[in-house]
């Protein structure tokens, strides 16, 4: 699963991405700092898992990369091309072909009034992949078979409500595949599926990565599935990226107090319910409206220092392929603390 790929230029390079929404009842005077200074790269044929709880900004980040919502600040580089410079106002059809998005809710991501065939044929027609009814029908069936939905011809004629959640999600994946994308952004693709169905869908994603070299950004709140499928893991908290790197490093040697908290909270049947040292880090995610300066985790961090409330820490490399943003590791920083 962790085959080392040769180091080639990244397919996606996100730098300093920021998103702020104005809010307020009468005057939109306050701002929601949804995403702040988020940077990460995705290499070809790699799965990058973006992990965070609700309010962490992971969905907003991915919607900006998919160019569904405008970016407040930041740059998106797709294969070294500065996308926001070359197509500032609207995404080009070419970009839409290269970057696809899968949604969390398998029911609402398919239009209830159209057949599965219609859903899959539309991208083919828009991007002029095939033409002619016969060719389209064949390609639709081929796509359905790729995502293991058989009998393809019969399923193509069905409506979304005639399929189960797992099947619908596979259709969503097929739709994304229709345009031969290079990058697929998957927003919590399995969290609304039955437990026993989830692995099938994850294995499908893994297979597409291996067989077709498609890169994935996989968003989840579940560290365990991030570990299963992710080559790299990025941890987000309250709109900021706090830790990231090779998934085994982040999981096995987590250094940021929030990551450690997350790890301790994941149900692990190998051990009983244990109250542990991090119990002081209780509390909830802070409000994103006009937040105070400094690290957003400062309010809950058991190892908080004065510096934490003043400025957001810079990115520090902890070991090869593993970085963190935490004042515990400032210049002349302390030794790596593991959980």
């Amino acid at each position: 699963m962790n085959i080392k790929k040769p180091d080639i230029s990244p397919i996606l390079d996100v730098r300093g991405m920021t998103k702020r929404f104005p809010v307020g009842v009468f005057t939109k005077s306050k701002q929601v700092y949804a995403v702040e200074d988020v940077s990460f790269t995705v290499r070809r044929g790699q799965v990058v898992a973006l992990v965070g709880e609700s309010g962490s900004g992971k969905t907003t980040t991915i919607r900006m990369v998919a160019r569904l919502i405008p970016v407040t600040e930041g740059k998106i580089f797709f294969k070294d091309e500065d996308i926001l410079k070359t197509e500032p106002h609207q995404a080009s059809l070419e970009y839409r072909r290269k970057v696809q998005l899968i949604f969390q809710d398998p029911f609402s991501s398919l239009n209830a009034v159209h057949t599965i065939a219609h859903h899959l044929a539309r991208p083919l027609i828009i991007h002029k992949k095939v033409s002619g009814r016969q060719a389209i029908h064949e390609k639709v069936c081929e796509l359905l078979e790729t995502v293991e939905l058989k009998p393809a011809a019969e399923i193509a004629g069905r409506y979304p409500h005639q399929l189960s959640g797992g099947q619908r999600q596979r259709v969503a994946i097929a739709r994304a595949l229709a345009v031969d994308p290079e990058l697929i952004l998957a927003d919590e693709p399995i969290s609304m599926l039955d437990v026993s169905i989830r692995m099938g869908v994850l294995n499908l994603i893994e297979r597409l990565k291996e067989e077709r070299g498609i890169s994935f950004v996989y968003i989840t709140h579940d560290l365990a599935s991030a570990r299963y499928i992710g080559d790299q893991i990025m941890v987000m908290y309250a709109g900021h990226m706090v830790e990231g790197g090779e998934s085994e490093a982040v999981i096995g040697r987590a250094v940021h107090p929030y990551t450690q908290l997350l790890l301790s909270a994941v149900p692990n049947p190998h051990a009983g319910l244990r109250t542990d040292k991090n119990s002081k880090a209780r509390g909830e995610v802070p409000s994103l409206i006009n937040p105070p300066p400094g690290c957003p985790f400062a309010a809950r961090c058991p190892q908080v220092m004065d510096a934490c409330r003043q400025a957001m820490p810079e990115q520090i490399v902890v070991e090869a392929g593993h970085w963190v943003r935490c004042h515990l590791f400032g210049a002349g920083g302390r030794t790596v603390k593991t959980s």
Partner: protein
Amino acid sequence: MNPNAVLSPGTPENEKAPTVSHGKPISTQMDFLRRMLSQPKAVIGLVIMAIFILMALFAPLIAPNDPNKYVGLPHQPPSAEHWLGTTGQGQDVFSQLVWGSRISLLIGFSVGILSTILGLVIGMISGYMPGVVDGVLNMFTNVFLLIPGLPLLIALASFLPQGMVTVMLVLTFTGWSWPARVFRSQVLSLREKDFVSASVVGGEGVPRIVFSEILPNMLSLVMSSLFGAVIYTIGADAGLAFLGFENVNIVSWGTMLYWASNSSALLQEAWWTFLPPGLCIALVSFATTMLIYAMDEVTNPRLRSEKEITRVLKKYKIGSSRSTPVIKETLTH
């Protein structure tokens, strides 16, 4: 977890999907029609409507004489010769009723359709386009909603040249804003749905998204808006005619009421001159309302289940209680 837990992977998801019959969107028109026809309300509505439509279509056969012709003494009560008696001008009421249905229904349906289409166009553009376009159109819609309908109708009708086109224009002009508002809300909420975002990400253009993705999801709303517009129009048209703002020489149910009022029909106790047209107007509205109710029930599963509940309770002779009833019966496998 358990090292023994290795299953041979079978082909996933190649089973027949669960067929769900309740509470899911209706996928085909045939399905929808079938369900509508099984509702008693729909049948009543359709039958009444059909009677009136047939009456309008076959007017020359049913009442072959010119309804404006003077045929007898004024205010004669119903008799074998004149089934609904005569008007204050000595015209045959029945004949007028039958021919009048043509105008009333024509105006009702055409304006209903026109105002729905106009409301749809404005509502959908306003709902889908963010920012300035929405702001302007929305304000426009609100202004029309706030202006009282009847005074506006009267004001417009009084200075425009009299005629059917005027009536149609005036009624459309005052009737589009309510559907526009409703459609705009619906589009606003549908716009946020994932399948719209999926279309955007797929490269779909805006017109196609609006008409091919969003509009089909609004069909039941459009239908019920259309029916509502028909009811409004028939009533408003009758109102305008009654007040004398239409060409009163054209025979319609509304103008019949105008003439009846003009001839002091109430004082004369000539009920046959105003009751039939009034009743017809009411019946057409009633039929349309029945269709709206039926459509509501077909599209909203919760309304349907109310009936099922009472049916089940009756079968087991249980009174309605708050707790789940317990019936010990042998299960048949």
